[in-house]
């Protein structure tokens, strides 16, 4: 028995599983750390915009604030409203957080060199990575809709309804806007798309329309301001998570931040060449993951920036903007890309 276990562990499959687990651990822990510090970053960045100081009490420069927040969330009383749909109410935060974390599985973070050993940080290479991501991000809406429904609160319900219509309509734009990328690179694999850009050029300029559509649609998909209608504190008093407390509430937020970080990684991979160093080989001594990280940070900063600057759009305006402007634009981008490819420009 022990012998069998030994051969299994040292065997090919065992090592593969071990490496897979190790990689998952690194990526998930890294993602959760990023989520925690994204909350701090958001508060710090907003405070710079708003001429405030921001958190600075816990640890130097407020660096232990996320940990204090986590402990506080864990210690808080977990309230379930009496008339809530209990199973769904409990399920919803998990549904909101899990898909966001699962997206990290296919993101090609690049390679990490530890001495002579090369660790590829992408957990699995799926040849339909893009489809996988869309499947998961569509699942993300269920957490919010169910949370809004199960709370049995009218504000939450309105928030859930808004989330449903908003995320489903912007999902279309999101999907259409990357068709141009897929057409150009000829692959649905994220690794393939990144490799294509590594070898040739980044797709930011050739796919600029697609990039803009994708970026706007992603803000809406992530429920970030100015498209944070499902939350809309000042209208819906928090929307779908009005009734949530304690760790369940925190999970909605972690889901939102994880989705934001994952989304930044995806857009960096699709349009900015992932870990590709800018300005050619001169800067390529910096490892790829660091470049990807920097690009992600730039997008995260951008999301926080627009939230701090713009007012919130109205529900019907958001829908008409999506359907009447972004969707045709994304379609036009597909057409344009097709024309350019057949003309041999791309």
């Amino acid at each position, binding site marked *: 028995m022990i012998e069998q276990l030994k051969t299994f562990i040292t065997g090919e499959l065992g090592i593969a599983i071990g490496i897979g687990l190790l990689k998952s651990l690194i990526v998930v822990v890294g993602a959760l750390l990023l989520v925690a510090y994204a909350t701090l970053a958001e508060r710090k960045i907003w405070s710079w915009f708003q001429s405030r100081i921001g958190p600075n009490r816990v640890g130097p420069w407020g660096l232990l604030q996320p940990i204090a927040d986590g402990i506080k969330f864990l210690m808080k009383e977990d309230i379930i409203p009496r008339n809530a749909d209990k199973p769904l109410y409990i399920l919803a935060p998990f549904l909101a957080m899990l898909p966001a974390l699962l997206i990290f599985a296919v993101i090609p973070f690049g390679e990490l060199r530890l001495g002579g050993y090369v660790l590829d940080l992408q957990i699995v290479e799926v040849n339909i990575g893009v489809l996988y991501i869309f499947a998961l991000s569509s699942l993300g809406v269920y957490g919010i809709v169910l949370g809004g429904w199960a709370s049995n609160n009218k504000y939450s319900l*309105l928030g859930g309804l808004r989330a449903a219509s908003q995320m489903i309509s912007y999902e279309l734009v999101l999907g259409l806007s990357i068709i141009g990328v897929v057409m150009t690179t000829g692959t649905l694999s994220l690794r393939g798309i990144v490799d294509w850009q590594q070898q040739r050029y980044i797709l930011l300029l050739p796919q600029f329309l697609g990039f803009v559509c994708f970026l706007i649609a992603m803000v809406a998909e992530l429920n970030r301001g100015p498209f944070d209608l499902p939350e*809309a*504190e000042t209208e819906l008093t928090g929307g779908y998570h009005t009734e949530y407390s304690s760790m369940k509430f925190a999970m909605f937020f972690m889901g939102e931040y994880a989705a934001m970080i994952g989304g930044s990684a995806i857009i960096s991979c699709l349009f900015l060449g992932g870990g590709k160093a800018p300005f050619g080989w001169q800067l390529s001594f910096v490892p790829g993951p660091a470049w990807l990280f920097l690009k992600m940070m730039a997008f995260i900063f951008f999301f926080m920036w627009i939230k701090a600057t713009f*007012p919130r759009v109205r529900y019907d305006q958001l829908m008409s903007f999506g359907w009447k402007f972004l969707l045709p634009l994304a379609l036009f981008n597909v057409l344009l890309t097709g024309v350019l490819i057949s003309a041999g420009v791309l």
Partner: protein
Amino acid sequence: MLNMGPQHPSTHGVLRVVLEMDGEIIVDLRPDVGYLHRGIEKIAEHRTYNQVLPLTDRLDYVSAAINNLGWVETVEKALGLEVPERAKTVRVILCELQRIASHLIWLGTHALDIGAMTVLLYCFRERERIMDIFENYCGARLTTSCFRVGGLMRELPEEFEGLVRDFLAYFPARIEEYDGLLSANPIWLKRTKGVGVIGARQAIDIGLSGPALRGSGVARDIRVDEPYANYERFKFIVPVGKKGDVYDRYQVRMEEFRQSISIVRQALDYLPNGPIMADAPQIVPPSKEAVAEDMSALIHQFKLLSKGYKVPAGEIYHAVEAPKGELGFYLVSDGSEMPYRLKIRGPSFVNLQALYQMSKGCLLADMVAIIGSLDICLGEVDR
């Protein structure tokens, strides 16, 4: 049915609105007020005329000085008391600063309601400086009680003029900053233009006043039409809107920032020397120095402050232009030391009536914008 408030982040206090909704569209609504009722009018019947003053702080608690002014001028009118020019000018300075502070609260919360939260913190940053000016003058920041029947509570402190001049130099650039953030922002325009429209005729019928009325194109401003204090000395324009939507009301108030700055500057340049209290020993208590030295002055002050002074019997109405609109005091005196009846016409209360006409048939998010554009203060609605 949706019960919005009394605990809701954008009903500006404890306003409750019972909404009948069809999805996101408001089919019917019924504002419900009274959650902040403290019975100020009734309490006033058992207070001497001086003791009513602190109560007025609690009406519209973000523009206390203007409420104070409304009350002391009402009593002065009833007494037939003439106030020295210097006191009047200081009153104008403080009231216009208070107007800016109140409008800053409006702008910040209005923008926050629509989702632009940075503006709120910018506004509070500037308001802080006005608060400092008030603290420098009277020691209080919010509930100032800074005027007295017959004049002012004290002479201006030395640093006062410098503080105000600093603020005047600092603030215009800040207005441009808000303008840059909001006035041409496409999302802001989409959220405010054509929302909550009320025509001039209807606005007058409801009894709107202040920026809410001027947004509909009616140039009525009590500072110009029935000047009080010494507003007739200062030149300023009364900005008006055209359509009467949320955006017009926004523009009117933004322009009032600039006008108030101009009034404060003129008043500061004009500020004459002279006494700060009227020469009326029967009403104005003797100076502190006199009280410290003179026995009869001490007795006189004690009698005046404990028993109060008599106001001739009769009825009187006096209104001032508060940041929210026409703030009127209707005073019935029976000739005793306390008001027989005091009715306060709070502009927020009257303006709130337009909420129904403005927001029927619009979306929930629009109603939040409309409440913000009406600039109500529940302390004044409920009194």
